[in-house]
């Protein structure tokens, strides 16, 4: 590409001023761009995009009322009350750390819904602190655990026999943890 | 070994098909990749050796004053 080289030379031979100007413009452009991207990502993170709230945030009122959100926790033992004449059911979700809230749901519960089981609910939080669930998610019991619930699960069972991989290198244990939760 | 017998190792309580298919797939891919990589090197080396032989021959021929070409 000799022509390209010549063109470059020509451009270089011109006075420095426009080139400098251009470089300055470029730098400002890039820097403002990066700053704006960072700002946007921070804004987005603030929005809690997967809309997941653990029990303590639901109880403490950090979760918005009247908006569709998701919450999760363990089904408290002996808390499931079924209506005699309808599909309505009420149960309590807990993180086993003293935070619990009631969930109202009307519909068929998933097969894997059990007491002591981890559950995700999607719905709206009512003024009185009761979660009106539109969906109860407990499918694919054995294959997948969202990271936010995995933390919950680990802290939730003090009697769990195994500690999380003390000797495994950090990266690998993450991989495996993620893997256990997935396939 | 975890298993009592070979048949048990093959059956794996009904999961044998899945497990063995996975391991065989992995081994096949590994062996195929190994073979392909090795062939890539050996064909090159053979080519170079062949070229060298030709050169040697032509040199020997020209030394002998043979003008066959």
């Amino acid at each position: 590409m000799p022509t390209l080289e010549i063109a470059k030379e020509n451009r270089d031979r011109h006075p420095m001023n426009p080139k400098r100007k251009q470089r300055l413009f470029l730098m400002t452009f890039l820097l403002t761009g990066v700053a704006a991207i960072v700002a946007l990502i921070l804004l987005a993170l603030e929005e809690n995009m997967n809309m997941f709230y653990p029990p303590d945030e639901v109880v403490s009122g950090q979760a918005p009322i009247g908006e569709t959100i998701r919450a999760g926790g363990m089904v408290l033992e002996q808390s499931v009350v079924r209506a005699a004449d309808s599909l309505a059911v009420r149960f309590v979700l807990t993180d086993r750390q003293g935070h619990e809230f009631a969930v109202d749901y009307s519909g068929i519960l998933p097969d894997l819904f059990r007491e002591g089981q981890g559950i995700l609910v999607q719905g709206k939080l009512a003024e009185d602190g009761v979660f009106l669930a539109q969906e109860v998610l407990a499918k694919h019991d054995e294959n997948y655990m969202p990271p936010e619930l995995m933390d919950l699960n680990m802290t939730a069972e003090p009697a769990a026999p195994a500690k999380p991989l003390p000797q495994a290198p950090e990266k690998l244990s993450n991989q495996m943890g993620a893997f256990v939760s997935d396939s | 070994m975890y298993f009592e017998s070979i048949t048990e190792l093959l059956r794996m309580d009904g999961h044998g098909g899945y497990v063995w298919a996975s391991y065989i797939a992995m081994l096949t891919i590994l062996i195929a990749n190994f073979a392909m990589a090795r062939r890539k090197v050996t064909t090159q080396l053979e080519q170079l050796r062949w070229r060298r032989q030709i050169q040697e021959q032509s040199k020997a021929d020209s030394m002998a004053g043979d003008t066959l070409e």
Partner: protein
Amino acid sequence: MLKALLQREALVVFRSKEGVLNPLAFLFLSVLVFGIAAPLNDRNGGEYGVGVLWVLVLLTNLLSLDALFRRDYDSGVLEQALLNAQTPWLFVMLRILSQWVCTGLIMTLTSPLLGILLGIPTNGLPVLGMALMVGTPAISLLGAIGAGLTVGFGRGGVLLALLVLPLFIPVLIFGVGAVKNVLDDANYWGQIYILAALSLAGLISAPFATLASLKISVAMR
């Protein structure tokens, strides 16, 4: 200099009706085909309609991107622009801008109509328009990299799709997510912010990557 380039781009956009009309016609035709194959309405629509619309937007953009640099490349204008222009990346950027005007912007403007045809409930339409507005620049910008790389091949279409469709997935996911969230009464601003961030990231990186890819293609002639 800038003025001349702008004028040229404006001429290309407004003189040739095909540049504006063809993608739009293709989009509406696809919606029609979809409507015939699997009619969508408020009852089953919503979620599906949003997904279908975004997929069609991606595919329409892909078709239009294939032609992004083709004419300039064939006529040699591209080579000249890369060699002589003081700021070749400005040329590239304006080219992408005009492609976006012909596809993304027009799709945004017609999105209420498309949304209704695909059975998206009316309360989702403003957010659909907003998501398209901030999301489609990312598609045009990212796609331009692949378009620059494949312009040298006589028929780069399939290769272009293979190269850039995986890169479009984030835009698709957040674009669909925003509209679904508004239909679910959930917060959708997070998705909009991410879409804007993707477009901005494309804006500061794509012109240079596109320039590099165009140089490769020009060297191939």
